[in-house]
């Protein structure tokens, strides 16, 4: 049982994502990006390389802002929680709880480049399926919340 959000939770998701080859084809193929998630004050850095999620770990805010980060997905904790709960309930994001749908319902994008470079923010769109698959994989992680 892992708590969302925590490094342990993300690492369990990583394990599920990497071990299920069905998640690495059909539009969710090779992906090359370094991104980050911000859940309230908590920051996580994620690296995709080829068909693997190479790294997911806690990071400092300063590290997130480094030029290495293509984009950061930042949402209010209650939005994150609603999304993860929805995935737990349905096995994958249902209705309007995909990252892309959540994004479109906000006035401003939930994904942004720390360097304010749209070409790097656009990687959120280019690799969207991988990020969705990653979070959908969390349906197989027993999850608790704060």
């Amino acid at each position, binding site marked *: 049982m892992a708590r969302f959000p925590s490094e342990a939770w993300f690492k369990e998701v990583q394990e599920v994502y990497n071990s299920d080859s069905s998640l690495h084809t*059909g539009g969710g193929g090779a992906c090359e990006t370094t991104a980050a998630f911000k859940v309230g004050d908590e920051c996580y850095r994620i690296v995709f390389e080829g068909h693997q999620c190479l790294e997911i770990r806690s990071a400092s805010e300063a590290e997130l802002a480094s030029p290495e980060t293509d984009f950061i997905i930042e949402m209010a904790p209650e939005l994150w929680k609603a999304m993860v709960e929805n995935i737990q309930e349905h096995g994958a994001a249902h209705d309007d709880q995909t990252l892309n749908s959540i994004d479109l319902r906000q006035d401003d994008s939930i994904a942004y480049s720390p360097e304010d470079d749209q070409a790097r923010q656009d990687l959120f769109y*280019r690799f969207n399926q991988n990020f969705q698959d990653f979070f959908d994989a969390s349906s197989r992680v027993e999850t608790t919340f704060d």
Partner: protein
Amino acid sequence: MSEAPVREQEHELDTSWMDQMGEWGIKAKPGKRGLTLAEIQIGEYGELPETTDNMTGRPRGATPRPEAYRVGAYGVRNLSEIWLENATFLYEEALQRQWSSATDIPWHTIEPLPDDIEEAECLLCTFFNEVEFVAGDVPARWIAKTSPDFFEARHVLIAQVMDEARHMDVFRKRALANGGGLMRMSGATSGFIGSIDLARDFTEMSTRLHISGEGAVLTMFRMGELMGQNDAEKRMYRLCAQDEARHVAFGVMHLRFLCEHAPERRPEIECYLDEAEAQIMAGLQNPAGTQAETSEALAILLGGGKAHYDEGHKMLLVIRRRQLKEYMKRVQSAGFGERFENGRSSIPEQYAAAY
């Protein structure tokens, strides 16, 4: 034993071609992403000429053959006219992220829909079919006009043509999958979208196609997830959006390269952007424009039926605002952001008014 007469060999085998080699002894090694195009940009094979007079189709790095015909009337012979920094990367990404409209879309999740929703979806599918024909045909024309010395950039465009073929077929499949069919054509190809094909310069074309046209379509594809009534539609739109974002990236990275390597062309590029922006306004903001039917279909789908049109229209305006903002930020990323501050562009005004 054969009774055929044994003949003396009349000629020595001429193997002088064996001495006609390009740079030799090359040993390309796979990197962590495999043996990509970036790994074979080695020695002379990786040297990009600023300007090329290769009119014979000679592969870059091969030894010239003096008697070779001039097979290609290559109009694009300057590196800055077509190049982008991440061409090899984008090409590999396109190859490795292909998907099949036959097997990667959960078509079984489609169920009968109310008439107004089915008709709106089919109208969009018809519109996208028209648009994707242009998005495939136009880059295809420029591929053959580009010197083979710049093959990496050509390859990205070739991959785009494949993507557009898939987009065409997936929307056609959706239109024919649920009791509906195609609707009356939108005529978009006679307006702005058709005008993409009138470009006389590659960057003029890329500005219209990749940055303004496909940038706008990217937003529409992304909206597809909100409009989709089932997993098949949601996935179809999401996968198309990924491809589209790659096409937009080509435009942004190319414009950035041109801006850095041929700054003398800036004033001309600003004019292309003026034209593209005037068209964005006509195509998306003017309710009397030829795109009105498409906008109505979007609002009906976003709202969840004709009865909720106003709600859908409101959502559409919010998303269009995002679309304008992203357009500005892409142009800024390419190095032409000043136009939004010095009053040249009317997009900031439209953005402020788009509520």
